[in-house]
């Protein structure tokens, strides 16, 4: 039997959790419900449930925007840039975390300092370089930019994580005859799995949501990404709420589904990352 105090505590906790769940699920529920309403219904009462299950918004959204093509591009570009960032930055972070060499600190500072450069200042130079290198309007162009944009955060995260792993484990591997690369690959990476996963998630989200480089560095619908598709549903003097909410629903639901399926891994890696970082 729970005491009165414990019962009160459980009730307060439950209320708090329900409230948090509502705050988290509420906006998503609202967007999905609004996608089944007509624009008129949304204008009249934004928070009312739909009068009927109307799929016109989805039909219009698919008619006027290449949303699935953009979705596929987003998936390829975000996954590739995440992988590239993970491979390159983890190795750089390992070297900076473990080896003492001249210029180590300066190099770390240099990599991290790119955090201070505003994106708008990078746009034009990158555009010109990409034009020269024939990377303009290519998926590879976006992959390289996104992988580089995530460099400072990933470096900071990975370096801190590698530093928290006891050196003795590597020394034991060296004694057993393993080289630096093998030690990194077979000893360090598995131990740093949580940290690497945290970095990968952050990098993926950054690439997935990025808008301005996708706009400036591409011109054909063949390589464009999802954030650009959502602009097909509003313009200065016209709007179609039904299509816009349908578009948002189609854009976010798969990612939420993936998150729900991988929830345990994501949460544990985030917690582990926060503790060890």
């Amino acid at each position, binding site marked *: 039997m729970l005491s009165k105090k414990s019962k009160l505590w459980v009730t307060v906790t439950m209320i708090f959790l329900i409230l948090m769940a509502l705050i988290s699920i509420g906006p998503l529920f609202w967007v999905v419900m609004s996608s089944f309403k*007509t*624009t*008129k219904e949304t*204008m*009249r009462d934004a928070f009312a449930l739909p009068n009927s299950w109307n799929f*016109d918004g989805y039909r*219009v959204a698919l008619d*006027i*925007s290449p949303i699935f093509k953009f979705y596929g591009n987003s998936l390829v570009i975000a996954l590739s840039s995440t992988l590239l960032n993970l491979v390159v930055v983890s190795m750089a972070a390992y070297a900076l975390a473990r080896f003492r060499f001249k210029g180590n600190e300066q190099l770390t500072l240099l990599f991290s300092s790119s955090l201070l450069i505003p994106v708008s200042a990078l*746009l*034009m130079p990158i*555009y*010109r370089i990409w*034009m020269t290198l024939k990377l303009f309007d290519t998926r590879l162009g976006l992959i390289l930019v996104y992988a580089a944009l995530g460099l400072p955060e990933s470096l900071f995260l990975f370096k801190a994580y590698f530093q928290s792993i006891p050196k003795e484990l590597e020394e034991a591997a060296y004694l057993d005859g393993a080289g630096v690369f093998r030690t990194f690959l077979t000893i360090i990476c598995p131990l740093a799995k949580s940290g690497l996963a945290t970095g990968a998630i952050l990098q993926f989200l950054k690439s997935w949501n990025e808008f*301005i480089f996708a*706009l*400036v560095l591409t*011109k*054909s*619908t063949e390589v464009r990404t999802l954030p*650009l*598709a959502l*602009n*097909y*549903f*509003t*313009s*200065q*003097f*016209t*709007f*179609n709420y*039904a*299509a816009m909410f349908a578009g948002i629903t189609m854009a976010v639901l798969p990612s939420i589904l993936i998150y729900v399926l991988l929830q345990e891994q994501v949460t544990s890696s985030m917690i582990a990352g926060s503790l060890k970082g």
Partner: protein
Amino acid sequence: MKKALLFVLCFVMALGAFAAVQAQDVVEINVPTMRIGINSSAEWFAERSAAFNAEYGDRIKVNIEEIAGDQNLVDKIKVLYSANSLPSAFDLGGYNVIDMMKDQLVDLTPYIDEETRANASDICWEVNTRDGKILGMPFTRQVIGYFYNKEHFAAAGIEKPAETWEEFFEDCEKLKAAGFTPLSMDTADSGWVTSLMLGAMIGGTDEGEVWMNTALPTDYNTEAFIDAATKIQYMFQNYTTPDAIGGAYEHAAANFFIEETSMIANGPWMVSDFYDTTMVDEDFADKIGVAMYPGAVMYNSGKIGWQVGAKDPKELEAAITYVKFMTSVESQLKMLEMTGDTPAADVASDNVYPLVNETTALTENAKHSINDFQSLWYANVVDEISVQYPLLAQGTITPEEFAQALTDTAQKN
């Protein structure tokens, strides 16, 4: 046998050379556009693009770059300008970048013959001209009054639209007393609807009319501007919906469509929405009237047209052909019929919604014809309005401080 082989070889080579020459003759031009998706002129652009391809497709290949969202296109053009890579041809729906980019835009003057010149009225050419050089080819005109809900007016005992601003504010009080919110207003995206009201107040005198037709003003500390800002502040605080602060055009329009508000300032391109039953009730269009602003003020001016950034001579020639096609009288009439946007040429069509022609007819009785802020003011001032309007609306800054903030921004150019 050898002769026959030689003949076939020569024939194939000649065919190849002919094909190569043919292929070389097709000039490619790049045209970014925001006229896609749900943009009201998307259908017009698609129809005109198809017509252009049918007529010139064997000589000119148009690579359309779809950029959804008006502001996104403006942002991209700014980056391309910084990189000295403006596209072959583009139009920004009237948004003024001519002054910022005049050093890279092609002077179209040598390409404007008498026939082309007749495609637009003088006022339209003037808006697109800088230092004697025509930098934009006009195809639409800016004609804007305001729309009002006749049922609301009748219920509030208002017989006709106000002729003075005093009457206008009295009518707002009557509407409020009758249970209606008098005005649709906004602050985001340069506060289009609100700024139209602001401009109309300034343009009600001869002096104000001149100011509202002056390109790139750098001093907003005028009596007329501060007086108009004072009225706008009062409107924000008394006659509009709570979502006006932070809201964009779509929120202002939505409030008018659901008959929450009684008046909205906007152009005739909005009229087709009055008939769209996914947005409004079936008889909505019958309830709507159009009026000129108090003081007999109408927005009636030229609009920034198509601009050309092509550098290569062949590309330039193709771009000029394209722009002339898109701005032809035929294209203008299609635009009028498909979107309600007023042509730059003095032409009319019966195949449009009555309110569109009624709006154009109002210009004949207007005492003051003014231009809109998006066409005339510096781009950074247009952006700054969205920052300053919420502060003005909430009373955080005074109308004088509002004017000073815009002056400071303009003088940074």
